[in-house]
C-alpha cells in the first residue's frame, strides 16, 4: 500500500536529513537568532536541503498520523477522508514552511 511505502522511504530519507539537521542546526548548542541562521542560508544548497527535509518530514509525519488514526476501528471507515485531509494539511504546511525558508534573505 502506498502509505506504508511512503512511510518507509521517507524514514530512510529522514535518517539522512534529520542527522544533518541535528548536527548542523543544533550542535554545538548556541543561541538561535535570525542572523546566525542567515549565515548558513546564504548558500542556496542549504535552502534546497531544507526544503527536501521539510518535504520528507511532512510526508513521514502525516503518513504516520494517518496510520495512527486509521489503526482505530472506528476511524478505519473514514480513511479516504482522512487521507485527503492529510494531503491538504501537507500542502498548506509545505507552502508555509517553504515560504519560511525562503524568507531567510539578507536585508537589501
Amino acid at each position, binding site marked *: *500500500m502506498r502509505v506504508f511505502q511512503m512511510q518507509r522511504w521517507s524514514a530512510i530519507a529522514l535518517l539522512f536529513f534529520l542527522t544533518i539537521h541535528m548536527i548542523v542546526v543544533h550542535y554545538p548548542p548556541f543561541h538561535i537568532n535570525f542572523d546566525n541562521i542567515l549565515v548558513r542560508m546564504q548558500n542556496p544548497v542549504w535552502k534546497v536541503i531544507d526544503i527536501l527535509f521539510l518535504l520528507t518530514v511532512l510526508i513521514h509525519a502525516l503518513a504516520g498520523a494517518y496510520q495512527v488514526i486509521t489503526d482505530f*476501528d472506528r476511524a478505519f471507515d473514514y480513511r479516504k477522508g482522512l487521507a485527503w485531509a492529510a494531503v491538504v494539511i501537507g500542502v498548506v504546511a509545505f507552502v508555509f514552511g517553504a515560504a519560511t525558508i525562503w524568507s531567510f534573505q539578507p536585508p537589501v
Partner: protein
Amino acid sequence: MSQNGSNNFVTVRIQRYNPEVDKKPRLQEYQVKLKAGMTVLDALHEIKTHHDGSVTFRRSCRHGICGSCAMNINGRNTLACETPLKDEVDSRGRVTIRPLPYLPVIKDLVVDRTTFWEQYLRVKPWLVPPDNIPEKEFRMSPEEVEALHSAETCIMCGACYSSCTVIGLNKRYIGPHALLKAFLRVLDPRDAAPGERLADIAGADGVYRCHTVFNCIDACPKGLNPTQAIETLRKLAQKRQKFEAARRERQQHLSEPISVK
C-alpha cells in the same frame, strides 16, 4: 520436577465472568495440590471437577494439536495443555489465568472467536488447483514442502491473533493467523491464484496494517513466525506480476519428476 510435591499447594487464580449475570470480571482463587507432571489444563480440570463445576474453558486433545485451549497464563498467551503448572507458579505461589485478551468473553476462559474465523474465511484458505490435474500426485520438491511446513503447522489456536496489538485496536485487520494461511497458499506451487491472493491481502486491512509488534511470534505455541510470513507477503505483493508469471511457468511442470541434483 519436585520429588514429592505432595504438600505443595498452588493458588490458581482464574478470571471469572459470565456476561449474562456478572457486571464485571473478577479473579477467583482455588487451591490446587501440585502433582508431578501436572499441566495448567490438569489444574483447571481438577478445579472444575472437584471445586467448582461452573469454571468454564475449552479443551479437547490435551496435547497441543487441536488448538482449543489457548488462554492467557500469567500475562502470556499459550496453550494450557502444554504448560507445566510448576513453571508458572510465581514467588507467592500463584498462577493467574485469564481468557485471551482483545476478544469478547463468552464465559470465564471461553472467548468469542467470530472475527478470528471470519478473517480465516476471508483469505479463502482453500487451494485453487490449476487446470491440468495429473492422474497421480502433483510433484513438489522436498524444499518446496519444507517452506510450507512453517505455515501448515498452524493449529488455529488464536494465541497470536489475540496477542497482536493491532487486533486490539482494529478487528478489521486480517491478523497473523489468516495471513499465515494466505502465505501457505501463495507459496504452494500448486495454487493457481497467488495473484488474487496477494492483491486481496495488500489492502489497508492486510499486510500493511501489521506494525511488526512481534507478539505473534512470542505467543505462538507451535513456534511459528507470522511476522516473517507477513514480511514475505509484502515483498511478493510488490512484484506480483513477476511472481504470477513464475508460478504459471512452474505449473507447466507440476506433473514431472523433480530432477535430483
